[in-house]
């Protein structure tokens, strides 16, 4: 433990530079040392030179080194050429496209005109036209989008969540958490105690005002997720687990996504069948206006907040 802290404390910048230059090394080695000491059951020789293949052994060592160098130079040249080629082709294409910032471009057609001119007063009731667009006009995209987050968390959970029988499992999530970073830093804790409520309130403000000012579920959810992450960094896993665990994640995302899907299913169905909807747009600018948008924003905000925290937590300690 102490060793890791020293290693990482001293010359992080130098290591980062070396890592950038050489690809994989010392930072990784420091981390590997941790995993090897504690986590890996079968100590496999790490970072030994891979045994040369039989056909390489026969050849002159010098010759091989030269060839490898040549190959590396060649691949760098190829990469640069490819990069310049892609950039050149795309720049050429862009130069032929409609020019930047002109109001008579084909993009600015009747669709954004209706979004802007009728969006607030007749169609969605959202002062924030982008919110009206993503949560009402093109709500199907956004429904898919929140499910992208959901599927990502599920996949990361499959990949990183500790299972009974995994080699890392016997450590327990708390130890793994401490392996990566020491905590209980009093300065951080005092500041976090002040900041976290403020961040949470700001996040809630951004979510709740998503339809009448800049913001919305995605940005507000990310802000609230940051507060949760800060809490875990400052107070450690045990404290955070008191109010946020896998069960919390499950309950929140099931409710939020289920509500989202049902609410949108209702409005899609009534819309397609030209049925009157019970949802009214209210008075634009009020907090309770714009039909379903504020509620959808809350649902999206909850999903995003949980996703951010869940991803961080899974990467950090393999548990929610």
């Amino acid at each position, binding site marked *: 433990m102490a060793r890791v802290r020293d290693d990482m404390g001293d010359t992080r910048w130098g290591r980062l530079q070396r890592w950038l230059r050489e*690809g994989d090394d010392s930072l990784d080695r420091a981390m590997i040392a941790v*995993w090897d000491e504690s986590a890996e059951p079968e100590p496999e020789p790490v970072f030994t030179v891979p045994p040369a293949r039989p056909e390489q052994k026969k050849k002159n060592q010098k010759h091989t080194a030269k060839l490898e160098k040549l190959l590396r130079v060649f691949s760098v040249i190829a990469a640069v050429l*490819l990069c*310049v080629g892609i950039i050149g082709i795309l720049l050429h294409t*862009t130069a032929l496209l409609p020019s930047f*910032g002109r109001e008579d471009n084909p993009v600015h057609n009747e669709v954004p005109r209706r979004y802007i001119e009728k969006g607030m007063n007749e169609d969605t009731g959202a002062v924030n036209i982008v919110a009206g667009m993503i949560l009402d006009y093109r709500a199907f995209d956004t429904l898919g*989008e929140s499910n*992208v987050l959901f599927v990502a968390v599920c996949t990361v959970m499959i990949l990183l969540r500790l299972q009974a029988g995994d080699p890392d499992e016997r450590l327990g999530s708390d130890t793994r958490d401490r392996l990566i970073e020491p905590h209980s830093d009093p300065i951080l804790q005092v500041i976090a105690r002040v900041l976290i409520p403020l961040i949470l309130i700001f996040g809630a403000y951004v979510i709740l005002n998503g339809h009448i000012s800049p913001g919305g579920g995605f940005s507000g959810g990310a802000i609230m997720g940051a507060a949760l992450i800060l809490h875990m960094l400052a107070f450690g896993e045990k404290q955070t687990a008191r109010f946020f665990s896998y069960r919390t994640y499950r309950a929140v995302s099931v409710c939020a996504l289920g509500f989202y899907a049902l609410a949108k299913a209702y409005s899609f169905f009534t819309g397609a069948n030209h049925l009157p909807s019970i949802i009214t747009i209210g008075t634009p600018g009020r907090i309770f206006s714009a039909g379903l948008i504020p509620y959808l924003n809350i649902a999206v905000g909850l999903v995003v907040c949980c996703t951010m925290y869940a991803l961080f937590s899974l990467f950090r300690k393999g548990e929610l």
Partner: protein
Amino acid sequence: MGLTNYAELAAIILFGIGFTILLIDRNLIKKNIGFAMTDSGMYLYLAAKGYISGRKAPIVVNGVTEMSAYINPIPAGLVLTGIVVSVATSAVMLALTVRLYRKYHTLNIDEIADKARKERE
């Protein structure tokens, strides 16, 4: 006609560099970085498409609902969707990288493939 702004130029340079890294570099973390750059470039490009000189963000102020007052809201919404998608993809790719690193102790995809092949034999 013609390339008249820096936003699109920067976006394309970002895209080109990122895409090259994604294609050629053998280090998995760098591939992830390349992927993030590719996506950022594209979102900048898409956002630039919605801009109209001298107009404001599409949030109604003082009840003005004329097309001539605001920029195009559609690219903004699409970028929002796209960003979320790229967050999700990066998370999954990084999780895979972590798993591979724990197992094979290297980030080089060729070495990993070599080791995996030996494992099979």
